[in-house]
């Protein structure tokens, strides 16, 4: 048995220690935003946030996650209340087939949590582990910049209240 905290809820999962987190997310918890791409930590489609860091869930065994807080794309917002990052991606129409997008968004989210105003170079460097075959790279970059703007505006608004 492994205890995982995903998007704020605690789950007891019956899985062997080497089971990749991705399998547990998709098969046990039915959280299907993180995708199975290569299974080797090389494409980025499975990326989720663990304790503030973006990790490839396909190569992260659940044995390492005891007591850690895991966030998937489902944890950022809902259809009715999308998060700032989700609104930015919708606004910029940054997804084409969308298979890579959940992973890219989670790494972008981790970046923006650590550095609210990343430069273009930093965003590019940070998203390097991700592959997108549709070629929406420019829109994705615009969406991350836009998300930084929205988040910054929200912070200013909160501070003013």
């Amino acid at each position, binding site marked *: 048995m492994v205890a995982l905290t995903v998007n704020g809820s605690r789950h007891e999962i019956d899985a062997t220690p080497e089971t990749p987190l991705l399998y547990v997310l998709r098969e046990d918890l039915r959280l299907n935003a993180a995708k199975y791409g*290569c*299974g080797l930590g090389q494409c980025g489609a499975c990326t989720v946030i663990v304790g503030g860091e973006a*990790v490839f869930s396909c190569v992260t065994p659940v044995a*390492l996650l005891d007591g850690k807080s895991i966030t998937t794309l489902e944890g950022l917002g809902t259809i009715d209340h999308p998060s700032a990052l989700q609104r930015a991606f919708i606004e910029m129409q940054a997804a084409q087939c969308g298979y890579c997008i959940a992973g890219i968004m989670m790494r972008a989210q981790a970046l923006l949590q650590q550095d609210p105003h990343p430069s273009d*170079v930093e965003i590019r460097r940070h998203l390097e*582990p991700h592959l997108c075959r549709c070629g929406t790279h420019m829109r994705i970059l615009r969406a991350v910049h836009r998300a930084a703007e929205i988040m910054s505006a929200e912070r200013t608004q909160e501070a003013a209240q």
Partner: protein
Amino acid sequence: MKRSYLLGVAAAVLCVVVVGTLALVWRPALAPIVPVTSPSFDPGLVRRGADLAALGDCNTCHTAPLGKTFAGGRPLQTPFGTIYATNITPDPQTGIGLWSEAAFVRAMREGVDREGRHLYPAFPYDHFTLISDDDDKALYAYLMTRQPVHAEALKNVLPFPINIRMILAGWNLFYLDKGPFRPDPSHDELWNRGAYLVEGVGHCGACHTPRNALGAEEKDDAFAGGEAEGWHAFSINQSSQSPVAWDVQSLQAYLANGWHGLHGVARGPMAPVVDNLSELPEGDIRAIAVYIASRMKSDTTPDSQESTVPLARNPENNPGSKPQSAGSQSAVPVSVAEEDEAGARIYVATCATCHESGRPVPYGGIHLFLSTAVTGESPQNLVNIVLAGLPASDGTKSPIMPNFGGVLSDAEVADLARYLREMAGKPAWDDLEAKIKTARGALSGPAASTAASK
């Protein structure tokens, strides 16, 4: 009378000291050349210069992250401070566009720039001094035919008195053995060619030889392993800790391809080296392999690569036993006893799924008891790789490994490293915790942030 005599002697001694110091320290500026807009060099010469520049890794140090090739600006962290590589494109204002060939050769051999300023030995002129006249000519022809880039060199960050360039004259007095290269008649031509390339333009010792407190290579301990940019450059002499002895064939393949099935992949600061070497003529790589293999060979080295070292704990998982294809990624269950230590449990769940997967190198990982990162003299590289992974390189083919710094605590990395050492039959490292701490710091430290310079 006596008093004025003494004064005279003192004055004379002072004069000699001043003149002597000046002669030692002062180097004249060499006349600038008229910048050539369309230089005409023999294409064959330029081609040979390209090979030599690749072997010398000029592009690696003289190119900033995401910057223009040879335009400088890359920071080199040294124990003394940060030194920024200069612009070696033929730009007249900020590069070497005004340098005559004589000025170039003087820089390569004496570490003095065109204007007469001493260069820091981060630029390995203590090796380049061995380069022949013809090869310097070719390097000059190659660099002067590159695209000029206007890029001002960044200011070095060095404390007093190291920021006074003239003190390097003293360093040179002690540590600069000027060329030319002298072949060793007791060895054949190929070995001597290798020695010339390795000791000269290749400057392998700049990383693989330990340095003394003043930053000079310990020549008596040549190739005994050194430090480079937060990584350990493994010993490549008889003290090599490689579980499988290197030979000419394996060295040649490793240097040309960047990996070898019994030794793993070249990463860290060795990655750009093998990228560059992959463009060199086969003969040069072979010469280098012959020379290094002879430096590594001891009386106890087996003659053949047919090693008694097993390739996997379970022969069914020998590298290459499974194809690289869809479905081969699935986790390989490796049993671990309930009472096994924490490190074993981490290894089995985290590392074995690839490193015992049976996929051939470089797509799969080698068994870790074959890795010098585990059996070597320093835990630094293992720790770096576990924490930061092996990210894909920009624009080149490269092996890749996910990072585990986000999910493994320092204590867990230490447990894992201790277990791997046990598995390889080696005693525990005594500086493990300290190395983990430095590597963790470097993940978000100045090196990481300059790499992403805005």
